[in-house]
């Protein structure tokens, strides 16, 4: 292979400059600002910042509520990732069959992704609300058990996981469908000739062949659930009951934007950043080994 060598020293720097500028302005500068804020206590209106060193972090790490939000985050992110990736895979395999109206199904399956998380939250709110929801009303004829997520934490958590997974489903299906189409038909036909049933074909051919897509989706869904899955929780449970659905990013927002405690909020975002970077690195280090490209 021939290496391209740029004449002079300035041109290459100039060419990468826009990318570097974007990274600095949109990634390093805000991240640096968070890091800076995290070691201060400052009144909301500003005026004076009191340097407190690692006090904000110490306060968080000695706060039971904060640990609870970390646990909630893992439960939530795990639930969303498993449900939306596994669900997405199953649905895509089904949508990859030769059936009538395929084009329509494939398009329709992408719709949920076009719905903003906050709107999805509102839709689920209308379906599940104990006071005016359709489903609790219907269930009240079947069972006396009250599915009141206003008071029962595990029901609330299940609800936000299902709602968030649903919004992610379309995105995952799009990628899985693309991955499935890329599997050569010759391989599938050979398997059929060898007498493999649908389940055997799924486990022995489809799963390994699309493992790069699965790996990508697991990382993306995990990061999404940790960082951005805010709309659904904000719209449906507001982090309640108690703090049962307060995940790290929701607590960060609540303490920063509602509670106006900027120092603690910044410290939380630094920790969240570290957690997500760490997890992504772990995934690349260990899970990627099992991926066949």
């Amino acid at each position: 292979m021939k290496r391209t060598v740029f004449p002079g020293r300035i041109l290459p720097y100039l060419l990468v400059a826009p990318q570097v500028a974007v990274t600095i302005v949109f990634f390093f500068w805000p991240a640096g600002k968070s890091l800076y804020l995290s070691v201060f206590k400052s009144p909301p209106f500003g005026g004076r910042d009191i340097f407190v060193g690692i006090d904000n972090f110490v306060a968080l790490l000695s706060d039971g509520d904060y640990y609870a939000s970390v646990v909630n985050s893992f439960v939530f992110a795990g639930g969303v990732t498993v449900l939306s990736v596994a669900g997405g895979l199953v649905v895509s395999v089904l949508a990859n069959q030769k059936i009538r109206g395929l084009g329509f199904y494939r398009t329709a399956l992408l719709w949920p992704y076009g719905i903003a998380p906050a709107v999805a939250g509102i839709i689920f709110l209308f379906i599940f609300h104990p006071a005016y929801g359709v489903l609790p009303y219907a269930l009240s004829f079947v069972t006396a058990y009250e599915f009141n997520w206003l008071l029962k934490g595990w029901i609330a958590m299940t609800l936000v996981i299902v709602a968030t997974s649903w919004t992610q489903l379309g995105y995952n299906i799009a990628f899985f469908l693309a991955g499935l189409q890329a599997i050569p038909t010759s391989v599938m036909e050979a398997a059929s000739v060898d007498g493999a049933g649908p389940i055997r074909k799924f486990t022995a051919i489809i799963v390994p062949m699309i493992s790069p897509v699965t790996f990508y989706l697991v990382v993306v869904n995990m990061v999404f659930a940790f960082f951005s899955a805010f709309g659904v929780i904000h719209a449906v449970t507001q982090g309640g009951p108690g703090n049962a659905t307060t995940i790290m990013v929701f607590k960060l927002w609540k303490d920063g934007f509602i509670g106006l405690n900027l120092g603690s909020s910044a410290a939380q975002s630094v920790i969240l950043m570290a957690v997500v970077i760490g997890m992504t690195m772990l995934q690349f280090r260990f899970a990627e080994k099992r991926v066949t490209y």
Partner: protein
Amino acid sequence: MKAFVPLGRSLAVLLGAVLLLALPGRAHAKTEVHFWHAMTGALAEALETQVKQFNDSQNDYEVKPVRKGSYAETLTAAIAAYRQKNPPHIVQVFDVGTQTMMLSGAVYPVWELMRDNEIKIDWNDFIKPVVGYYTKDGKLYSMPYNSSTPIFYYNKDAFKKAGLDPEKPPRTWPEVESFSKKIIAAGATKCGFSTGWPSWTMVENMHATHDQPFASKHNGFDAVEGVELLINGEFGLKHIGALNAWQKDNVFSYGGRTGTADPKFVNGDCAMYIQSSALISGFAKSIKFDWGTGELPHWGAPYKKATSIIGGATLWVLKGKPAPEYKGVARFLEYLAKPEQQMWWHVNTGYLAVSNTAVRNLEQGYHFVKNPKQYTAFAQLTGLPPTPPAALKDRKAAPPKPERVATPNSSGLRLGNFVQIRDVIEGELENIYGGKKSVKQGLDEAVAKSNALLKEFAATYKQ
């Protein structure tokens, strides 16, 4: 190309002439006053109408109302704007933000604004519990605007069905319990009562109306440092314990934070409801059955019967604008303080008219006799009996005697980090009602967490 040059030049001349003509007009333009608020729906329309009335009433100032979302979002937006040195002149801030605003150093206190602009307003004419909430060292910091207090709503049809007198709402908690049981037994509704804003109605106002301290140092009025919550005392345990126990028989049914429980009452699931008095006009539109209002239930002796505390928001003036523009702000606030504007605002929104003159004028105009529901909140805040009195001019008997006392415990709350404290209290109430914690555990935990927040606040503002 050449042919176009004269055209270009003549265009430029024309443009210049237009600009010149326009300039004198701009010099005479009204000074703009930016007003950020958090009202929605019919309330936002009322606010805009009132602002327009002010704009039309004079030629020097133009108040521009801008909706910034929820109360919390409006405050966050104002803070961001202030930090970027471009704040609005006026921002509407909810009751729980009071301490944060007072200590912010970003505020042009209303008393100072009025003094500097030589405008005299008789603040003594204003209802005490309202101005008291926003007064420090005898000086008013923000302009009372939309104030309300929690009151008791009940379904008269359900009362009739259960054989209860529809004109007699319960006045004590034991009555609420026995009425609920009768109503449920008669099959009129599924549950007895629910509430909106759990901390405000069931913790803050219950402590106030029973003359019990909510927090130390006079509910935070006396100091910033060393304030602690006192809601896990004997009274708190008794009241929350009763609510928790009542869930079993559906006497009480929890419906979530803020106003999410409203449908329980509006749909006829619960026969009684405790919510802000500002919902009267909304309920009047959405409720299909016959309903009435009453005062907040009381536990009786040995507790004193005290006035309730307000909620809602006030208008804060922010520093950082050119001095002459504040004249317009002062004129606008002066306009809002006028009795006729107070009356207009009350009639069109259901929020309280906060000057005594306005209330007397409303009485004179038979407003309360015609709209007795609108009187409940005034009675509860001033301590008078809940039945509206006859208009002054028709009154033969002596004026009614107060039934409730105003005490330091009932004159408001001034806590730092109050938004988070409310969140903590409501979270722990959910843990209690959901059976995750005992009443004592939950309230102790709420106090411990709130005290940490209060300490944190004091540390941020330490001199």
